[in-house]
């Protein structure tokens, strides 16, 4: 794919010769003429240049500002800080514990924290709770108590609640599935590919295979779908696992709703990043060919991008860190990012002492703080993951060019598929 820029206009020429335009501020996608493409470098066609300038300066009445709420509306709770797997890339001390003797959350401390956060919400607000670990299903009783409290308070305050459980998928027993159904959870299963890959990167603590247990668990989940909001799988890819395309082929055999492919947040390896990008593009090509928009939307990245383009919502913040999101660790300490857990210097409170000054939302947008002003992808990306930038450059607001190049490549692919799907209408 060849790219050209004209201020806020990006033009893409696909391998099949289609020329697609994208307006970085208005989030419009358009078909462009060959003359216009040529004029972007040679200014050979005065009419084309005039139309290009006119489009570039157009003020759209369709595009919407981001609906950032500047209050905590999404919370992750590390209900345990222990795990039954020993993933090679585990960020929590290789065993899910961070070396801490505290193995699970104190629900009696979590409930007052939830109360503080939920009391701030207004009638009709959304509130999301994600159960994380360690492995959260090692403490299903804790999840149930927290969810019961949140649902009762949500009903009282007329809030729209959604739950998500991020699990390694090895403990999906009938009993645990009943717990997940009691709060209509989304279930996100971490699985890095077919057994020959997943068993190497995500082995059990004894070194035995975990994949067979996950597959059995998914079969049980699939028999209980009526009580669950969705079931999906997510994989982490990087220098040690560079085959998302193989993972996709395996994921499709599982009968789940959606797939999510993550590049390792702690890696800035350019070759691995480019391999990841190429594989995701190959996955998208297969999905488009096999199932069009429905199959592409099964991949969470494309689903989000298509929603953003359809709704014309300008994103200004990659995530809710410092604005609308908080994570509680198993010691009931609060952090603004799941990756920051266990770094006491990054805690924004503990117990009910949620530091008010640290919970004051950062009003400035991330694309502004990260100096993304000249990037054509800024309103679809939102400035990227601060943790990934910090790992690569030492400063969370100094963007990692490997991350940015990968993001722009994938977003340009998404724009090209979006064009193909929408031009027919």
């Amino acid at each position: 794919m060849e790219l050209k820029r004209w201020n806020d206009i990006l033009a893409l020429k696909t391998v099949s010769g289609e020329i697609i335009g994208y307006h970085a501020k208005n989030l419009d996608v358009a078909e462009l003429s060959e003359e216009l493409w040529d004029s972007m470098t040679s200014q050979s066609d005065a009419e084309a240049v005039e139309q290009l300038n006119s489009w570039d300066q157009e003020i759209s009445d369709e595009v919407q500002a981001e609906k950032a709420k500047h209050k905590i509306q999404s919370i992750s709770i590390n209900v345990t800080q222990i795990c039954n797997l020993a993933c090679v890339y585990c960020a929590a001390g290789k065993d899910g514990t961070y070396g801490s003797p505290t193995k699970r959350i104190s629900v009696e401390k979590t409930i007052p924290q939830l109360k503080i956060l939920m009391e701030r919400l207004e009638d009709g607000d959304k509130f999301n709770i994600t159960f994380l670990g360690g492995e959260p299903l090692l403490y299903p009783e804790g999840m149930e108590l927290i969810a019961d409290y949140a649902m009762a308070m949500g009903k009282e305050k007329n809030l729209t609640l959604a739950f998500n459980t991020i699990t390694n998928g090895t403990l999906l027993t009938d009993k645990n599935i009943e717990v997940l159904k009691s709060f209509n959870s989304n279930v996100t299963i971490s699985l890095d590919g077919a057994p020959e890959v997943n068993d190497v990167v995500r082995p059990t603590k004894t070194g035995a295979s975990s994949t067979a247990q996950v597959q059995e668990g998914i079969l049980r989940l699939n028999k209980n779908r009526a009580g669950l909001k969705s079931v999906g799988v997510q994989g982490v890819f990087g220098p040690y696992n560079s085959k998302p395309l193989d993972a996709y082929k395996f994921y499709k055999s599982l009968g789940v709703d959606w797939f999510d492919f993550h590049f390792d947040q702690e890696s800035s390896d350019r070759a691995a990043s480019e391999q990841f990008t190429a594989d995701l593009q190959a996955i998208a090509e297969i999905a488009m060919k096999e199932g069009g928009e429905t199959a592409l939307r099964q991949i969470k990245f494309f689903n989000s991008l298509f929603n953003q383009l359809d709704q014309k919502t300008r994103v200004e913040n990659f995530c809710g860190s410092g604005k609308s999101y908080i994570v509680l660790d198993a010691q009931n300490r609060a952090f603004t990012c799941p990756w920051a857990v266990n770094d006491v210097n990054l805690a924004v409170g503990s117990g009910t002492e949620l530091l008010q000054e640290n919970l004051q939302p950062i009003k400035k947008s991330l694309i502004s703080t990260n100096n993304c002003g000249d990037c054509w992808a800024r309103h679809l990306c939102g400035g990227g993951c601060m943790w990934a930038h910090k790992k690569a450059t030492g400063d969370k607001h100094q963007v990692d060019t490997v991350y940015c190049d990968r993001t722009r490549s994938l977003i340009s692919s998404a724009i090209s598929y979006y064009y193909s799907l929408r031009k027919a209408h």
Partner: protein
Amino acid sequence: MKKENQKLHIKKVKPAAVKTVSAPDDCRVLTIL
């Protein structure tokens, strides 16, 4: 944008009604939609 007899060099595609899969939000929640 287009004057009479001018060739139309830019043809915008129309957004569709959102057809979304039910996938959970994550830390990006509510910053987007």
